[in-house]
Structures are given as structure tokens and as C-alpha cells.
């Protein structure tokens, strides 16, 4: 497993970095809508990260008003990259 990132800082997107190490999973979110949706966004990030097989790592996310499906897709891509798979082959299927 290695450090990875996915997404952009453009409006409507979310940029995610995964930094391996530490104990357990730590999710850090920066979002202009953190007050209303912070909890929700974090729960999507954490659930998707666990589904993708991540455990000990720091996940940092800078949200620019991304939709749930975008958040999920970016998180999966970052996880795939962390495990060195090539995400391009899977992305269409993931976004549905």
C-alpha cells in the first residue's frame, strides 16, 4: 500500500488523499458545507474506504460541494491507487 490521491479541487468535486500508517482509520474533512453535511460526507468516505479494504491510514478530503456518487467514486479510485491498481478500467462501473 502506498500514498495516493484522487479527485480535483474544482467546484462540484472532492479531492482525497490517502496516507498509509498510524493505527486505525482517521478521516479529516475540509468542506465549506461541513456544518450541514460534514457528518454525512465523512460517513460515505469511511464506509467506502472500508469496503475498499483500507484500514490503517489517514484520509484527508477537501470537498468542493461534491455529490454523494462523486464522493464514493473518488474514494474508491484513491483506494485502488493506494493498492496500485489501475482505476481507469473500473471507473465507469463504479460511478454506474
Amino acid at each position, binding site marked *: 500500500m502506498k500514498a495516493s490521491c484522487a*479527485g480535483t479541487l*474544482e467546484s462540484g468535486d472532492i*479531492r482525497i*488523499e490517502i496516507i498509509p500508517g498510524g493505527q486505525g482509520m*482517521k478521516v479529516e474533512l475540509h468542506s465549506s458545507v461541513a456544518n450541514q453535511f460534514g457528518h454525512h460526507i465523512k460517513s460515505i468516505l469511511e464506509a467506502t474506504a472500508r469496503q475498499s479494504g483500507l484500514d490503517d491510514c489517514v484520509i*484527508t478530503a477537501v470537498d468542493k460541494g461534491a455529490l454523494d456518487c462523486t464522493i464514493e467514486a473518488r474514494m474508491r479510485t484513491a483506494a485502488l491507487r493506494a493498492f496500485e491498481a489501475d482505476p481507469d478500467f473500473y471507473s465507469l462501473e463504479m460511478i454506474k
Partner: protein
Amino acid sequence: MDARRLLRSDINQYKALLIEAGLKDDCPSEAYGIFDEDRLVGAGGRDGNVLKGFAISPSYRGEGLLASIVGPLLDDLGQEALVFTSPASMQAFQSLGFLLLGSTDQAALLTSRPHEYRRFIDTIKAQGAKAAVVANANPFTKGHLYLITQAIKAEGRVLVLIVQADRSAYPFFLRLEMARRALKGLDAIVMPSGPYIISQATFPTYFIKDDSLASKAYADLDAAVYSRIAHDAGIQMRYVGTEPFDKLTEYYNQALCARAAVTVIPRLGQISASSYRKTQDPELVPSVNLGLLDLARKGKDKAGILGALAREALEKEVMLTPKPGLVDQANNGSHTDMDLELFMKSAKALQGYFEQCARMGEDYDGTFPAKLREAGIQAEEVMLKATGGVNTHKGAIFSMGILCYCLAQEPFGNPSQRIKLMCSSLQPRRGAVDMARTGYSLVFQALSLSPLRALAFFMAGLDDANILRRGGEDSLAWTQKQASSMLHLPEQDLKQAMENLDQGMMKAGLSPGGSADMMGLYYLLKSLEA
């Protein structure tokens, strides 16, 4: 509008954009830009992990172009980025998730990874110190020792942060080790200063002294960053020495006093790091560090120093006399095609390879890297060229190469575990490979022994492929038995026994080349204890 990496051909447009934004037209080494048709309308770049040179054409401001530039820069970097920027742009970066570390009315510093900053703070907090000294220690002098001792007297435990940026006459790893050794036994915690204090981002002119306005702006910003760190980490008092010579340092002290709680201690006599650099007067530095200061003279940076020490280690190994069956000052042992002079030539030719190994070792990740193998193969050619086709140091190329590679991360730590992990993927084979797979545990056990005794220890414990090749299992068993029997002899008798064994091995045509390679490692590790 398109975003892409800037090319050399874009540089004139980029410079124009920087000038338009009221900045200097220094282009960073890597940059991204946004184009409207063919026109560059926004750009920014990075030098190492410092983001800089951001400029957006006035009519395109407020459209979120910054995000399209910063994102790809962060993607490429893949680690913490620091931004040094104007207070006006501070908020734009904050909205991209950056954390503000400090700002003045002229400049601001932010990090892309707030959690790394918090982790740094937690590490400091965990030391339980209420006072701090920040020192470049270039080199560590009796003046530093005095200042820190005074601080400990007044405050108890003191945190000593050694400037981490590697831009000084003495490389960082030596400056850190000098502080550690000089402060041993005192209630001082020595740590690297981290990426935020007097870093290349916060204080680039600290390293190239000038007292211009830019330097003062940097000094103010660094003081602001320090005061934030001190506040977050529970450091209540900073200790500094009076500065009678250097204007910028004096200004920096004032800037600190304006923003944080500072105690200024009168300097001890005329002692300063710069006066040591000029005079090399050993009276100015703690005597415990004289060995480290000698190491510093061997190369200009960590890899250069390790390369020079590796070469010296091979020279010391061949000079060690008597060595049974091996080339030494007394005879050429069981060899007809080589002598002392040839070994010296070979060691000299390999210095660059050892330096290269140490440089590559910065990227240590626990695996055996292909590039190390390639470098080793090339080094064999270098050796054969220097010796006219004689294999003098093939084993040393392997083992010393691995040691230099694994020492790079922490030259004064014990690299045994690192070596073991890295070599665990190698196919087991009696001799050099198996030694590497143990992390050279025999060598580390031998460090407390005298050179001759260490040699006997290696000959007794090693499955020497060289002896196996020349004489088979019986000869190996015989050699090991002979060597074991001399392990506990007094030094003078040991020497005599070695001389006798030398005769015996020459008669049998045996040469413990594998043990000689371990002696090389022994000498390198010994020189780091200096």
C-alpha cells in the same frame, strides 16, 4: 479553458504574468497553467515541496482558477506541501483545505496537510518540555551548551530543535548528532526542527545571509510560525543567546520577542559557530564532538561522508596485519595476483559507488531495489578496470553497498533490522548472501572487540564462501576451529596465533575473503562511533 503543465516555451508568458501580479519573475522548477485559447491566464508552481509563483490575470480572478492549478501540483508532489504567499491570497488557499501556520502583514505560510502539522505538535507535546531552544548548531559549540544548560537550570526539561533544512556548512545528520552527544545526560530532548521552523519556506534568507527587507519579512513570518507552534505545543519560553555580530539574527531575536515569550541569555564570551568555522579552534566546541567534526571534513554531505568512510574502511581492512591468508602489510597471503597497492587502488575506485549507494538509500522502503543491484554490477566493472581484471572487492561491493544504502536513513542508528528486512527477499546462499540476510548480526556483535579479535570472531562464525571454494567443507571446519581457539587469547598472544595461522593458511592456499569483507563493515561502523 485548459489546464496543463507549463513547458519551457511557456516561460515568457509565465514571467509576464508574474510581473503583472507584482511578483518577481522567478519561475519555479515545475509549474501548471490555465490557458484561454493560447493565452496563459493563470499559473503557479513548486520548488520541491514549496508551492509558489501563483499569478492569475486580473480579469480572470474570482473564477476558481487557483483550484485547477493547485490540485495537479499536489497530485504530482504526493506529500505535504507548504505555501508561502501574500496575506491577500491566504483565504483562497484556506478554502482549498490548507491550514494557516502563521501570517504577518506581508506574508503567510500554510500547509496542505493539517494532520501532519498536528502530528508534529503532538510529538513535541509528548516530550513534556516547557521551554525550547532552536539551533542550527553549525556546528554545535560550547555557546550552545551554555545557553541550553542555563535554560535547563531555569525551566527543567528543555526541547532542543535542530534546524532540519540541509543548507548549512555541516550536514543536518551531523548537526543533530553533535547536539545529541553534547547534551547526553542533561534534561534536554533533541529533535529535528521539522518542516515549519526556519525551513526553506519560512526563512530562505536565513541560509544566505543578507539584511534586506525580504530577510526581515521572512524573519517576521518565522517568528509568527514559531509562536503558533509554541502556543499549540505548550512551549512557554524560548531561549536565545544575545547576538552581537549578525544583524539578521539580531533582528530575528527582536521579531521573536515581539510575538512570543523569550528569555535572552548573554552570549558566553566570543564563542560562536561562525568563529569555529573560521578558526577550527577545538576549544570552541565540546570535546565529545571532535570526532564528528573530523567526519564532517570527509565529505560535503551525508552520502559523500559515508562514501569516504566506506573507502577508508576498506583501506583499514587491508592494512590490518596480520591477517591469515589475506593480503596485508606483511605479505600477499594466499594470493598471487594481488597486493596491498592493488587493494588501495580498488578501494579508491569504489568510493563513488559507495557514495551512490548512500544517496540511493534515502529512498529505503524495505525492499531490495533493482537500482542497487545495477549499481553493484557497474561497480564490479569499475573495480576490474582499476585492478586490471583482478577481483579485489567483489564481496565488499555487495556487503558494503548494502550497508551504505541502509545507513543513509539514520547513520548513527543501528541499521541491522533495516538490512535484514531488505535482504529477506534474497535467495538463501551460504556466505555473503546469508550474512546479509541476518542483518550482519555478527558484525554488530563484534563492534566491542579489537580489530584482530573481530577478525577471529568472523573467521570462527562465518561460512566463508571463499574458503569453501578453495578448500571445501573440511577446510572451512578447520579454519573455524582454529579461529575459535584464539578468541579468548590476550591481545599479544592473539597476534602471534594469527601469524601462525597465516603461515598455515598460506600453505593450504586458503583465504578468508568473506571475513575480510565483514572487517570492512566493522571499520565503517566503528568510524561512525568516533
